[in-house]
């Protein structure tokens, strides 16, 4: 009997932490108990993105969107909806302030999103290679291996204008070309899944929700540059992603999509996992390679770039998870299709982790060039509790604050940099009127100081010096000359540091001074940083209803 009804249970980490696994199991057993196991297919998927409202259960084709589901609710969903076909009003999502229920695609959180990279997340069972293949998976690899030369793949990526999503936005085809051009017999492909930006989890969701897309892309990269070995460097803090990747590798190997002589093409490619161990700097590519080599993750001065001299001294392509996940679609749908999405200089989409003081916290994918206002107020549903928007931090600890007046800038790699911030990996933290910018700057600087590897002088000592100055301001003990000092030391770091961590580490402090100098000045007169920064109050407000 054809299964026409699908019940999708979110199996992302956030939802899983609120018992989505029990929910999934309950639904399955309860359906079986009622003899409906044949007619409804229950799928545990990757993250839907709307983590704020998790655990989420979605029923197709009805597009019913149940939020904050508990294991006690499943009986009702099964009996009412899956058996009798009646939507459970009580659990269905309503837009804030709205009276009526919103169905999946109507939800404003999703409406403006374009899901390219997240195409499969929340739709398929990430633990099933068949479902991936069912949605066109490994078609790109097949096509590349049977019909395309390496140069054709590169040309497609060039047409697509794909730029690295790891932060720097370096054109992917160029990177691949460098490695392809190297004469060494051994080359590597490395997937950067270190995702160190605190407050960002795009890569995690992709790996948990659609692991094969990354494997497929790595194989395509291997074929293109002439590498037969891939490594995924993944944070040890992502056990679920690790588990799903391991399963995906095993499954792909089992049916010959990875391993020796794939599709009889003579091309062989293997993928192994290597775990990170809690070091933000290991997201930096040269540090990452050191870490894979089993060493301290200290960056190395570039050039030479990894593309030419990377892992164990061999040419190595390093790409971010999100960069890779987009590649199979670029191959199947064509570079031109992809280039039409997004902005002039930055084609395609970008996934952001929208968090902080925002109603709809979650993971979103939008075309490049969308304005921040659209993201914060339309998709994100604005600021909770009627508070006023103060700033949004993009680029995580390397980025800067963007204020109200710039909310209408269409965002891409270049515009964000123009605003003194950066794209980074895609963290987007919204702050409201209660947040002290000195505190936020101090938070980021402390993070950067903690995460500095310590190799180079400006970052090791300069960062610590700024941190201390910020601590002084937050206690209201800043001195007038200290503002300038922060700026001076910040410039030393920007100019002098060895790697991107140090050159960007002062950004949060510098941008807070640019936009909120008055807070610094005020702190000196009031004797303390503005009160009510995050903290207790917010925690109380956020206490979940159920």
């Amino acid at each position: 009997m054809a299964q026409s009804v699908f019940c999708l249970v979110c199996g992302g980490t956030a939802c899983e932490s609120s018992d989505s696994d029990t929910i999934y199991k309950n639904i399955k057993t309860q359906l079986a108990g009622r003899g409906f196991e044949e007619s409804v297919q229950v799928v545990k998927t990757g993250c839907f993105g709307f983590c704020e409202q998790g655990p989420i259960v979605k029923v197709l084709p009805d597009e019913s969107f149940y939020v904050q589901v508990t294991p006690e609710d499943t009986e009702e969903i099964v009996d009412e909806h899956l058996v009798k076909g009646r939507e459970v009003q009580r659990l269905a999502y309503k837009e804030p302030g709205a009276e009526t229920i919103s169905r999946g695609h109507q939800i404003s959180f999703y409406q403006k999103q374009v899901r390219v990279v997240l195409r499969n997340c929340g739709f398929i069972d990430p633990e099933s290679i068949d479902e991936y293949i069912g949605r066109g998976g490994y078609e790109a690899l097949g096509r590349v291996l049977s019909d395309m030369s390496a140069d054709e793949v590169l040309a497609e990526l060039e047409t697509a204008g794909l730029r690295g999503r790891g932060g720097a936005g370096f054109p992917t085809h160029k990177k691949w070309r460098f490695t392809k051009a190297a004469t060494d017999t051994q080359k590597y492909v490395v997937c950067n899944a270190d995702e160190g930006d605190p407050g960002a989890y795009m890569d995690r969701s992709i790996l948990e929700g659609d692991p094969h897309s990354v494997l497929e892309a790595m194989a395509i990269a291997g074929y293109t540059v002439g590498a037969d070995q891939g490594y995924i460097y993944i944070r040890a803090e992502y056990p679920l992603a690790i588990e799903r990747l391991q399963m995906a590798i095993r499954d792909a190997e089992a049916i010959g999509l990875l391993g020796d002589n794939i599709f009889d093409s003579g091309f062989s490619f293997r993928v192994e996992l290597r775990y990170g161990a809690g070091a933000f700097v290991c997201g930096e590519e040269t540090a990452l390679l050191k870490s894979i080599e089993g060493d301290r993750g200290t960056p190395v001065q570039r050039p030479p770039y990894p593309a030419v001299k990377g892992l164990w001294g061999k040419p190595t392509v390093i790409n971010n998870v999100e960069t890779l996940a987009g590649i199979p679609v670029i191959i199947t749908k064509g570079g031109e299709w992809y280039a039409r999405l997004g902005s002039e200089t930055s084609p395609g989409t970008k996934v952001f982790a929208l968090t902080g003081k925002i109603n709809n916290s979650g993971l979103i994918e939008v075309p490049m060039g969308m304005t921040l206002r659209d993201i914060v107020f339309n998709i994100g549903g604005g600021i909770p509790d009627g508070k006023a928007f103060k700033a949004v931090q993009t680029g995580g600890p390397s980025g800067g604050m963007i204020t109200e007046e710039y909310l209408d800038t269409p965002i891409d790699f270049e515009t964000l940099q123009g605003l003194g911030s950066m794209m980074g990996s895609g963290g987007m933290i919204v702050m409201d009127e209660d947040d002290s910018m000195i505190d936020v700057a101090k938070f980021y600087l402390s993070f950067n100081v903690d995460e500095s590897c310590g190799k180079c002088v400006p970052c090791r000592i300069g960062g610590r010096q700024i941190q201390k100055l910020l601590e002084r301001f937050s206690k209201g003990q800043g001195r007038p000359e200290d503002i300038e000092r922060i700026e001076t030391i910040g410039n030393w770091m920007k100019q002098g540091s060895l790697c991107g961590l140090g050159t960007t580490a002062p950004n949060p402090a510098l941008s807070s001074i640019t936009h909120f100098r008055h807070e610094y000045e005020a702190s000196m007169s009031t004797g303390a940083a503005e009160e009510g920064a995050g903290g207790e109050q917010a925690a109380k407000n956020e206490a979940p209803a159920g």
Partner: protein
Amino acid sequence: MITMQIDGHKITAREDQTVLDAALENGIDIPRLCHHPDLTPSGGCRLCNVEVVGSNKMQPSCTMEVSDGLEVITESEGLYDHRHSIIDLLVSDHPLDCVTCEKSGTCELQRYAYKYGISETSLDFELGREEKVDDNPMFLRDHPYCILCGRCVRVCNEVVGADAIQFGDRGFDSYVATQFDVPMGDSSCVFCGSCVQVCPTAALTHKSRIGKGREWEFDRVETICGYCGVGCRIEFAVNTEGAEPDIAYAQGTPNAPTGRFLCSKGRYGWDYAKNKERLTTPLVRKDLAYELGLTDTPWQMPETSPLSAKNTAEYFVPVDWDTAMGIITDKLTQAVREAGPGAVAGLSSARCTNEDNYLFQKLMRATIGTNNVDHCARLCHASTVAGLAAAFGSGAMTNSIGEVRDADCIFITGSNTSEAHPVIGYEVNRAVQSGATLIVCDPRHIPLAEKATIHLQSAPGTDIHVFLAMLHVMIRDELADMEFVRERTEDFESLEKSVTAMDPETAAEVSGVPAADIERAARLYALGLRQDGDSRYGGGVEGRGDSERGRSSILYAMGITQRSNGTELVKTLANLAMLGGHMGKASTGVNPLRGQANVQGACDLGALPNVYPGYQKVTDAASRAKFAEAWGSEALDEQAGLTIVEMMRAAEAGDVKAMFFMGENPMISDPNIGHVEKALRSLDFLAAVDIFLSETCQLAQVVLPATSFLEKEGTFTNTERRVQALTPVLQGPGDARPDWRIVAELGRRLAAALGTPQEQWDYSSPEQIMKEISSVAPIYGGMDYGRLGTKGLVWPCPDAEHPGTPILHVGEFRRGKGKFHAVPPRLSSEQPDEEYPYVLTTGRMLYHFHTGTMTRKSKGLSWKQKRGYVEVNEQDAEALGIADGKAVVIESRRGQIRARARVGATVPSGVVFVPFHFKEAAANLLTQDENLDPDAKIPELKACAVKVTNPAQKKQTVKEQ
């Protein structure tokens, strides 16, 4: 070569240079702190940043590769500000108390603080590291002064290969740590002090210098290390303010041919010099003194062995030089008169200079009239001299130390390089780090085995099977360089025939080395294959079609030579090198690592019973005539003299009646010392020159005090045949005299007594002696003190214009064609049996030198290793119930010793190892002095049969009964 611009100057540079190197080479100084010319660039301090024209970013010049057309600016306002900021930041995390700081004056941080006018930080002062660690007698680790430049970590890993230190923690809290912060002495630190040498600040400081003065107050004297044959050049910082010069610390020098780093002995082993037990005056033993009326009390030499005797200084009475010299002259004259010159024998010394040795053998040959002169080379590389002379025509290292670094494949066998020739070990480590393959064939898991591509762990005495199988594979698999074989060698056919039966499987059965490893080793060695990286010579890459054969170099030492078939083994290694075509080119060759600081020179200058200086045979009439003329002798002894072991036998038999030793301590170093003691006691007369009252001196009637290498002039010839000049750093103690002066004085007196020309002994300086040497020994023909400088000269150097010969046998072997020798697979002479089931092998450890007269008196070295020990395999230990650190008894047919067990996996099961440095557990009580190598007469110090027992267990069984 590429062309680029630095500060507007056009310069040319090599493609592989960094901008900083190119600038420095062209006299443009760029500030720098983390950079060190011997280490890989770090790029961490950011001081060397320069501006690239056309880019708005600064970049460190120490990591930037030069490129054609590149233009950089090294000084600008922006760079000044940047560098100022770096120093400002650094001193915010630094005590900056230069006034009392030991490093003041050479401190690089201080230099830049001065340059940028920074006397205190403009920032908040905060130390990231607070601890001062004082956990060893050699150096202090004063963390607050550390600027985390990482030089120490890199030198320890990249050069020394000890991997003792690493950064711990990260960021602002980073510090230089040992494993789990254990004290230095419990880490893998080898106390080479290289980290201290490269440290730009006072974070690492030699303790010996503390309180001895400020940097600018020290004199600096460069001389050559007197321990091993590497011959490192050492710069001593000396305080000359006091009554006597006092060494503050030792340092390698950048212009040294062997590199700028030292090992623990060169670095810290100099404090023996001021030890209060130094001999300061001639001594006469009380029995002889009484006999001669020098004392009134009769006295009898006790029976107690010198190995256990106490207060032996009381055996002697001090006398003046004239008296002592008079006695020796009389006694030796008497022996010659009564029993002929052949009744006298002398041991010269590889610890002594070329000039000392030349005079010593001249004394024996020209004045006394015998060829009975030998020295410790007999126990050492005698088989090399014989074997390589037969194969190539010359018995020394074919290539030089500096070439090791660039080899593609290094084959080490029977050499514990990192302990016995540590600085060559550094070169091996560097080669391996840059991608060379390393094959180690040694029964023990020596430190370099850890870095090896393959460790062929052959059972003692079975390596010959492995080598023969390698030859077999090279021929079978057509890996040989047949062009070389055809053009440069002879007797290939006899070799080919001799190895057909030795296939890898057969060899595997005997040696325990897997056949596959033997095959792989043969392939790597023959083709000179690298594991990684690019060869300096462009070859050695597997699978690269156009690639030529890489460069393979053999290094070997006592594991090969101290064997009853040592000469055959040496010939086999020569076979390997010739078959692979690895001869006569840079970074190839057969390289015997000579042991003592001047063992090469002692051999070169004829301290051997069969050759005159320059390896001219005593049995050759023309040579004899030549030397007779030069030395004003009527006739010289026509027969080769006695070798060491033969001398001892002859002494015991009463054929040799008087002996004269200079700088030898056979009571510890000769095989079967029980036997040696008997021989020496049975002599009519024994005189010894030494710097301490050694165990051998204790059996002598007259003992003369010599100055040591730190106190004298002369030359040493190191293992790569490089003649280098010594410069006195200290004054000799008391009345001690340089050996050459002692020998010359004795020569004068003996010549007078025996009626040979006295004017032959008018020497006023070592330089004058070298002039004579160069006139009689063609390989030293061009040696002249004026030419030696800081780099010395490598023989053969036939004339004053000749630049020296770092690589031998280029184009042609010294004997014409290289000769292959068919060699049978012989096992060691004393095989284990039921009664003595274990194989004992003996040798060295890093911190001690031979008989320990000097190193065991060094504070630091003896702290690191106080007592003797026995290495026992963990499985054997378990079977015997022996625990790590507990006593074991080792017994052979000749004697027994007791020492602490060092249980582990260094020796394989069935083998024990005892270092021979410790008289309390003297290895040579056990070793055998029979079954000498028939050609070289070297004893088999590397294998004998022993039993191993657990004394605790014995006691226990007694108790139980």
